[in-house]
């Protein structure tokens, strides 16, 4: 990677704005919990929340809460509560964090900034297969109804249209249920309006991701990672699209002025898997010391809602849910990742195996080998977990990252 005269950027201005959006969101939810002016729903990441928003639910995301718990180093406490109740330690730690925080809330124990209590739970299995069982337990603890939208794994040769119809039928049933549950009819015009906002937000989100195709990149993957929050949680509001619009202007300015996230970025690196939320600072420092600039990840695809179309609100919602990246086959993911390496001009890959996330980690070896064999780029696999710090050994991972840097250096000779 060429290095011309580059300036080192400070923290993104958009970070402050993001902080404000997050604070407002959670404060608003807590107020609604007290006033009960709206019903509260918990939704999984790729659930069709547009329907919930259109029916005036306040929507909360336990997975986002787990990520924050990990980043704030409080997940361990929640997980301990779960283990004390006999849940197995090797369960998904998002699940253990969530169940632990729930039990803690219900029993008046100390829990980190608990989510507003739900009246309804909506889960989809298009991100993983454990999630349905996890949410079944949440439903049991909260004594509230749970609906699961079933999404088939999209294996080669499957009729995707049929999968979409399968999901659409369930969305129609969901709407019927919610109308009975709330006593109100779904306003389809409002649904269309919300899908329009969501599409606008998603388009701007995708543009944000594309900024890192620039060489050099204006920000690292860790810098922009947290900015998935608006598209996940707030895309029904114009503020989400506006946040990305302003962030994109900021990134464009950095690109024009040659601003880079740290001194001497030598290598453009891909990250596979979910972040180790508690280790972001340590990994950032380590990667920076090695001249490795994390550029992008297929993790971003979880928060992309590219197929939304207000002119076909319900159909496009069904397509979005049914054809989520994580429902795709391993071959699809391998080829997709290969394309990402080409589009973003990546030099190497770091595959972040998560000990408690088997569905997310199981494809890593295959994808890593596939891309390495196709493109001749070096890879390494590090170990850790989403939020459980006991599964993490910084020194072992540091050694693997250093070895990757040595491999890249030797390739230059």
């Amino acid at each position, binding site marked *: 990677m060429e290095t011309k005269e580059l300036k080192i950027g400070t923290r993104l201005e958009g970070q402050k704005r993001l902080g404000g959006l997050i604070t407002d969101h959670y404060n608003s939810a807590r107020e609604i919990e007290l006033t009960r002016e709206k019903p509260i729903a918990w939704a999984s990441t790729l659930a069709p929340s547009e329907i919930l928003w259109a029916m005036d639910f306040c929507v909360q995301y336990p997975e986002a809460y787990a990520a924050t718990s990990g980043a704030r180093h409080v997940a361990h406490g929640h997980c301990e509560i779960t283990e004390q109740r006999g849940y197995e330690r090797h369960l998904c730690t998002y699940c253990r964090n969530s169940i632990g925080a729930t039990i803690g809330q219900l029993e008046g124990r100390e829990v980190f900034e608990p989510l507003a209590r739900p009246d309804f739970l909506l889960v989809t299995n298009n991100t993983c297969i454990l999630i349905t069982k996890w949410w079944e337990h949440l439903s049991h603890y909260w004594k509230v109804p749970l609906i699961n939208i079933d999404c088939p794994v999209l294996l080669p040769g499957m009729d995707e249209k049929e999968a979409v119809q399968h999901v659409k039928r369930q969305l129609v049933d969901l709407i019927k249920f919610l109308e009975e549950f709330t006593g109100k009819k779904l306003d389809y015009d409002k649904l269309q309006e919300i899908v329009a906002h969501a599409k606008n937000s998603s388009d701007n989100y995708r543009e944000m991701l594309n900024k890192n195709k620039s060489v050099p990149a204006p920000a690292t993957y860790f810098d922009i990672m947290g900015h998935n929050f608006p598209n996940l949680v707030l895309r029904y509001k114009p503020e989400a699209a506006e946040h990305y619009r302003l962030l994109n202007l900021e990134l464009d300015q950095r690109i024009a002025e040659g601003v880079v996230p740290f001194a001497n970025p030598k290598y453009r690196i891909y990250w596979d898997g979910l972040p180790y939320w508690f280790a972001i600072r340590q990994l950032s420092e380590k990667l920076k010391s090695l001249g490795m600039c994390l550029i992008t990840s297929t993790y971003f695809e979880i928060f992309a809602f590219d197929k939304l179309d207000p002119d076909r609100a319900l159909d496009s919602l069904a397509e979005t849910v049914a054809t989520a990246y994580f429902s795709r086959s391993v071959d699809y993911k391998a080829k997709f990742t290969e394309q990402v390496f080409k589009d973003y001009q990546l030099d190497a890959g770091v595959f972040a195996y998560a000990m408690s996330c088997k569905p997310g980690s199981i494809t890593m070896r295959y994808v890593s080998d596939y891309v390495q064999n196709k493109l001749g780029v070096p890879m390494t696999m590090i170990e850790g977990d989403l939020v459980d710090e006991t599964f993490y050994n910084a020194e*072992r991972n540091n050694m693997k990252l250093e070895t990757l840097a040595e*491999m890249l250096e*030797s390739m230059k000779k």
Partner: protein
Amino acid sequence: MITVGIDIGSTTTKAVVLDENGRYSWSVQPSGIDIPAIGKQVIKNALDKLGLSLQEVSSIVATGYGRISLPFATKTVTEITCNAAGVHHVFPEATLIVDIGGQDSKAIKINSQGRVVQFAMNDKCAAGTGKFLEVAAQTLEVNVDELGAISQESQNRIVISNTCTVFAQSEIVSLIARKTAKEDIAAALHESIVSRVLGLIESIDPELEKHIVLTGGVAKNIAIAKLLERMMGRTVLVPDNPQITTALGAAILARD
């Protein structure tokens, strides 16, 4: 140019001194808390063997987990890169290395220049490492260096099902209580280690390479090499001093 490579592992610290004629000497001693002091001592021991002093050394490369703790090292390089350089020096045709140390086992693919192309390590678990044999030897009340020879006397194949070092110890105690022969237990332990390592090898080399090079402290156990050969159907080469190959590689890289 005299260079030094020092490999500070979890169990032992190894130093190799390499002179301008390609001669080298080495020294090994147990690792400990005072890494700089142990490092200095083991380097001195290796220098003494060639009649050299520290002042004559041009460059020191430190590797292993303790590499960041040697203030007098010229630079640090990971043990994977060092091991590759060391093996390439000893076996220039080698393309696949298996290194079994005290707490790590690694499979490393290298190119014709001795550069690392791909690598895999054991996950955060001591199964398939020297620690597994060490704990087992203690339980069997034998010296760990004797385990290989004892295993060769086995007449009946049994299986140690636990891969966890701690739970395997319980399993060994149960086997002893049932009067299982020590030789059979030792053989099963070796098979357990090699099975774990096979998984690592296949993860980076699903197609067969011609031969592999076995390094690390556990490579001194000839039974491991023989079993690996048998289970893989491939030739296993072991350097004369497999425990110091990484330190040798570090000394070679110190010339750069």
